[in-house]
C-alpha cells in the first residue's frame, strides 16, 4: 500500500481555562489513503471540529504532528503554510456564516483564484468561476447575486465551488449538510460524492449524523471527549460495533421504517466536562457495561480485528455483548 496522503499522530489541542486544562483533542492519531474518505463522528463537544481545524492549522495544535504527503504541517512557516493550504481546503457547516455577505457569488469564488494567482487575467478569472459554478450545479444567472438572496443549498454550493477553485487534494468537510433540509441534503451529498470520484479527492467528513457518514465514508472514527474510541471500515463499524458508546450511538438513531424495533440503549446522564479529566476511560461513568478494571488507567486504542480499533477494557477482555 502506498503511504497515506495524510497522517495525524498524537494530535492534541488543550485550552487553558480558568477552571483547569480543557482537553478538546487528546492524542488523536489516524491516517487517510489518497482518494478515500474518513468519517469523524461524535456528539457536540467531542472535539471533531477541532481536529478538522487543527489539520489546516486554523487553530494551532498543542502538540503532535500532521503529515500531509510526508510534510509536517505543524512546522511550516507562514509562506509554506499558505502554499500547503492550496492542497487542503475546507467546507464549513454554516452556509450563512461562512460567506462574506458583502461579496457577490463571483467575487467569493474568484477570491482563492486571485490570491493564489491561479487565473492569468480578468477574462480567465471569469471563465474559471463560470466553470466552477457549472461543476457544482449553480446556474450562471447567480453570478452577480449576493448570498443573502439565495437559499441554504445554493449557498453551500458556493462554499464547495470556493473550496474546489484551487484544485485541492484533500477537503475537510465540517458538517457540510447539517444546516440543510433532507431533500437538499441529498443533492449536496450526491454532488460531493460525484466530485470526489471525478477528481480523486480525499475527504475528511466531520458530522454528528451517523447515517450520513455511513453513506459517505470508507472508514469511520468515533470520538468521545477528545479521543477516538473506535475506528473501523464503515461496513464493519455498522455491522459489528464494539465500543459501548458506539453501540449506544447507533441504537439511538431513529429509523424511518416500520420494521421490528431494535432494543435501544439509553445512556444515562450527559457528556462529562472535558476539563481536568481523570486518567481513566472517559466513558466509564456513563457506561452501562463498566467493570472494575475500567476505573484503571485509560485503555489504549488496540486492534481488535484487522482494521478494527477500539479503546475499551471490556472489548480487550473479549467480553463484548
Amino acid at each position, binding site marked *: 500500500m502506498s503511504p497515506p496522503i495524510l497522517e495525524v499522530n498524537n494530535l492534541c489541542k488543550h485550552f487553558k481555562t480558568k477552571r483547569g486544562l480543557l482537553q478538546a483533542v487528546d492524542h488523536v492519531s489516524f491516517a487517510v489513503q489518497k482518494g478515500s474518505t474518513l468519517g469523524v463522528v461524535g456528539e457536540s463537544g467531542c472535539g471533531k471540529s477541532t481536529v478538522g481545524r487543527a489539520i489546516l492549522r486554523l487553530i494551532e495544535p498543542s502538540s503532535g504532528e500532521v503529515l500531509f504527503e510526508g510534510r509536517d504541517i505543524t512546522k511550516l512557516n507562514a509562506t509554506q503554510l499558505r502554499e500547503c493550504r492550496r492542497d487542503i481546503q475546507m467546507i464549513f457547516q454554516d452556509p450563512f456564516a461562512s460567506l462574506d455577505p458583502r461579496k457577490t457569488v463571483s467575487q467569493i469564488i474568484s477570491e482563492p483564484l486571485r490570491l493564489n494567482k491561479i487565473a492569468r487575467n480578468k477574462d480567465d478569472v471569469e471563465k474559471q468561476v463560470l466553470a466552477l459554478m457549472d461543476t457544482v450545479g449553480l446556474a450562471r444567472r447567480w453570478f452577480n447575486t449576493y448570498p443573502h438572496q439565495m437559499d441554504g443549498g445554493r449557498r453551500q454550493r458556493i462554499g464547495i465551488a470556493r473550496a474546489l477553485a484551487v484544485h485541492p487534494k484533500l477537503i475537510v468537510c465540517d458538517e457540510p449538510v447539517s444546516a440543510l433540509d433532507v431533500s437538499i441534503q441529498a443533492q449536496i451529498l450526491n454532488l460531493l460524492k460525484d466530485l470526489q470520484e471525478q477528481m480523486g479527492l480525499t475527504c475528511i467528513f466531520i458530522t454528528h449524523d451517523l447515517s450520513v457518514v*455511513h453513506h459517505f465514508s470508507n472508514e469511520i472514527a468515533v470520538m468521545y471527549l477528545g479521543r477516538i474510541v473506535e475506528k473501523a471500515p464503515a461496513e464493519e463499524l455498522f455491522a459489528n460495533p464494539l465500543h459501548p458508546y458506539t453501540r449506544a*450511538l447507533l441504537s439511538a438513531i431513529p429509523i424511518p421504517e416500520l420494521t421490528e424495533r431494535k432494543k435501544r440503549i*439509553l445512556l444515562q446522564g450527559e457528556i462529562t466536562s472535558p476539563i481536568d479529566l481523570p486518567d481513566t476511560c472517559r466513558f466509564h461513568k456513563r457506561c452501562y457495561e463498566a467493570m472494575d478494571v475500567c476505573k484503571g488507567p485509560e485503555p489504549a486504542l488496540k486492534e481488535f480485528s484487522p482494521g478494527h480499533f477500539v479503546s475499551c477494557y471490556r472489548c480487550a477482555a473479549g467480553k463484548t455483548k
Partner: protein
Amino acid sequence: MSETKKILKIEDLTVHYDTENGIVRAVNGINITLDHKEALGLVGETGAGKTTTALSMLRLIPDPPGRIVSGSIEIDGLDLMSKTESELEKIRGKDVAMIFQDPMTALNPVFPVGEQIAESIRIHEHVSYQEAMERANEMLEIVGIHRERAKDYPHQLSGGMKQRVVIAIALACHAKLLIADEPTTALDVTIQAQVLELIKEYRERYHTSLLMITHDLGIVAETCDRVAVMYAGNIVEQGTLRDVFNHTLHPYTEGLFASLPNINDRAARLNSIPGTVPDPTKIPDGCVFAPRCSYAADNCIKSPQRDNWVSESHMVRCSRYEEPSFKIIRGNAT
C-alpha cells in the same frame, strides 16, 4: 369519520403573512383531526408551514403581519377562533401546551428554572407559592432533573437539561394536548433518545395527545400513530404510519424517503428531489409540488388539488390519482 369528540379539529385553516414582497401564503386550507390519546406527526421541510400551523393552534400568530384568513380550530370541543385574549390565556398551558424547538431561547434567562415551572402552575391553579414550588420540584423529578437544580438559572444547565425544563413547564398543568415543535432538533442523538423516551413515558402515564412537528421521519416512526406530510402550506398526504410509510402515495413523500441515506444500503446513490421549494409569495394555484414532480402531467400545475381519501384513514392530495391506473414507484414496491 366517527362521531366521537376529537381532542383537535382543524378545518380549512388558511394563514397568510403580509410582507413587503407580497402575501406569504404559509398555510393554505389544511384539515387535521386528532383523537384522544393519539399522536400525529406533522412532517415537512423548512417553510412548509408546520410551525405556523402549531402557532395557529394556540392563536399565537403575530398579527400583524400574520392573519388567520379562514378556518376553524377546535380543541377538546372549544372553538378557539371565538375566544378573547383573556380566555385564550386560560386555555394555553392548561388545555394545550407547547414544547418549543430551541430550549436556549424558550426559557427566561433571569429567573431560576424552578420558578419558571411554578409560574405556569400559579397562572392556571389557585395554589400558594410554596405549593407551586413543590409541584415544580416534582415536575423536575418527573423529567429526570434533581430537585436541587430548581434554583439554577438556565445558563447553568446543559442543552438537554434545558429542554427537559421546557417540557416540565409544558406538562406542569397536565395539558390534554401537547404540541411539540421539533423538540429534539437542537440536541445530540443520545440526548434526543432520552427526551423522546421521556415524552413517551409521560404520555403513557397521563394519556396525553401529541402533535409532533418534525422534519425527521425516523422520529415519526418511533413516536406517532398517524402522520401528515406538509409541503408549501398544504398537507399533501395523511394517514396511519402503515399507510404513509408502507403504501406511500404522494410523489413528494416518496421523494422525502428516497432522499434519506439508507443505513442498510450504503452504495446506493441518493435520489434527491430536484429544485427547491416554491417562493411562498408565488405559490402555484394547482399542485404546489408539480414544478419538482417527476410524475407531473400537463394540467397538474393548473388543476386545483383536493383531498382525495383513498381509504378511511389515508388521504392524498394529487390529482393524478383520478386516473385509475396511476401509481408511483415506491407505492408499487411495497
